[in-house]
């Protein structure tokens, strides 16, 4: 009966390996012996009914054998499940390890950039004494996270006040509260742009799905209108006309800024595309290029200005009720994008760790 006790501990995958080993080393030879004898017994035994007293002993042995066989099968199944669980656990560990390595690389990079001006060689290439500010970026990431949480909270408040059929004055205050909060975001971004405009304009601080729609460090103002307007019927003829004009104006402004940015990019390319055999001092060209990165700051500032003004002018065209509805829809949209992004990031990923067996 001793051989059955270890089987009860099979649920712990850590222990089951010891148990499995134990079974393999201890139990099997014994069972093998039992099965062979039982098989011999069976071949004689099966056609007959187990009523004769002389065959009672053989019957109990058969019962024992089938019990043992069943337990063996259960154990095999449990061990298999344990192995799968262990595999999943190891995969998780590997993914976390990769993430950790990536994070360490990024921190190292940020530190190096912060130490750049200490390197005498690099100062010849730098036109301005300002350094990339890794602390500024870290601060921004934390503040942005806080902003997102607060934005969600203010949108929930707006939704509650809206659904509670509050007075127009009250609703108007909460609408203004949400609009002011978007202004806070643009202020945050301006600080981050001063610290590292390339970081800001790349949108790495945004959830991955939002980055698909990135235009100069954020969402397109005309896209904001596209999100809000369909939620808003009925609109008066005058409102429709005003919204159409606003939409056109923001598109024209976006086009102009996009073309200006393209021109900046082209001139950067020209600065950096030097003749490899020429003897010019590349440091000078790099100093000019660095100044152009600073010009990027003004483009981001203009883009954020457009975003802010679009929201404000839109809210002026609409009634308080409509503006509330529009802002709720906007907040909900970005919240869903964020959720979509998390689902994407946490999707089961078996391509990184286990080698694919190609057919």
């Amino acid at each position, binding site marked *: 009966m001793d051989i059955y006790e270890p089987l009860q501990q099979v649920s712990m995958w850590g222990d089951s390996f010891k148990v499995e080993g134990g079974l393999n080393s201890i139990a099997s030879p014994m069972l093998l012996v039992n099965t062979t004898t039982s098989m011999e017994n069976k071949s004689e035994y099966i056609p007959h009914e187990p009523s004769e007293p002389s065959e009672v002993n053989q019957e109990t042995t058969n019962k024992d054998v089938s019990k043992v066989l069943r337990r063996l099968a259960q154990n095999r199944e449990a061990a298999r499940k344990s192995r799968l669980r262990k595999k999943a656990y190891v995969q998780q560990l590997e993914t976390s390890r990769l993430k950790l390595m990536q994070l360490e690389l990024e921190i190292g990079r940020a530190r190096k950039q912060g130490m750049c001006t200490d390197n005498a060689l690099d100062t010849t290439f730098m036109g301005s004494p300002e350094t990339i500010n890794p602390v500024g970026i870290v601060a921004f990431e934390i503040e942005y996270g806080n902003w997102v949480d607060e934005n969600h909270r203010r949108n929930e408040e707006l939704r509650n006040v809206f659904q509670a059929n509050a007075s127009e004055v009250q609703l108007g205050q909460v609408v203004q509260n949400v609009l002011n909060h978007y202004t806070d975001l643009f202020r945050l971004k301006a600080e981050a742009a001063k610290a590292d405009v390339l970081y800001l304009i790349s949108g790495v601080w945004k959830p991955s799905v939002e980055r698909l729609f990135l235009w100069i460090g954020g969402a397109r103002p005309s896209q904001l209108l596209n999100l809000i307007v369909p939620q808003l019927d009925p609109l008066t003829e005058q409102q429709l006309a*005003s919204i159409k*004009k606003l939409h056109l104006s923001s598109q*024209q402004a976006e*086009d*102009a800024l996009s073309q*200006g940015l393209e021109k900046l990019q082209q*001139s950067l390319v020209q600065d950096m595309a030097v003749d490899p055999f020429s003897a010019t001092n590349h440091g000078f060209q790099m100093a000019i290029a660095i100044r152009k990165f600073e010009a990027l700051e003004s483009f981001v500032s*203009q883009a954020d200005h457009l975003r802010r*003004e679009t929201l404000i*002018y839109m809210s002026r065209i609409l009634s308080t009720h409509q503006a509330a509805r529009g802002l709720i829809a906007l907040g909900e949209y970005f919240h869903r994008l964020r959720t979509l992004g998390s689902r994407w990031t946490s999707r089961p990923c078996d391509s990184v760790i286990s080698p694919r067996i190609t057919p």
Partner: protein
Amino acid sequence: MEKVMRLASEKGVVIFTKSSCCLCYAVNILFQELGIRPMVHEIDQDPEGRDMEKALLRLGCTAPVPAVFIGGKLMGSTNEIMSLHLSGSLTQLLKPYQSRS
């Protein structure tokens, strides 16, 4: 200052820019999209450029370039022009100067 005011009145829509300024280029593109051919003065190519820059700031322009004048009056820099455009006022102001092409 006189030079700036003189140049600003030479045409309906006048923009003071710098040749390296891509934001100035963007503002120019916007005007062209609206059917305007502004007169562009690159102050970094002008021998009196420094003084002109100071004059523009003294007139109250938020940034020396681009500085936009409509009908001889200073409208402002990029920020102001973008706001005017979104509010619909810019198109109104530009009506007398739009080319009929």
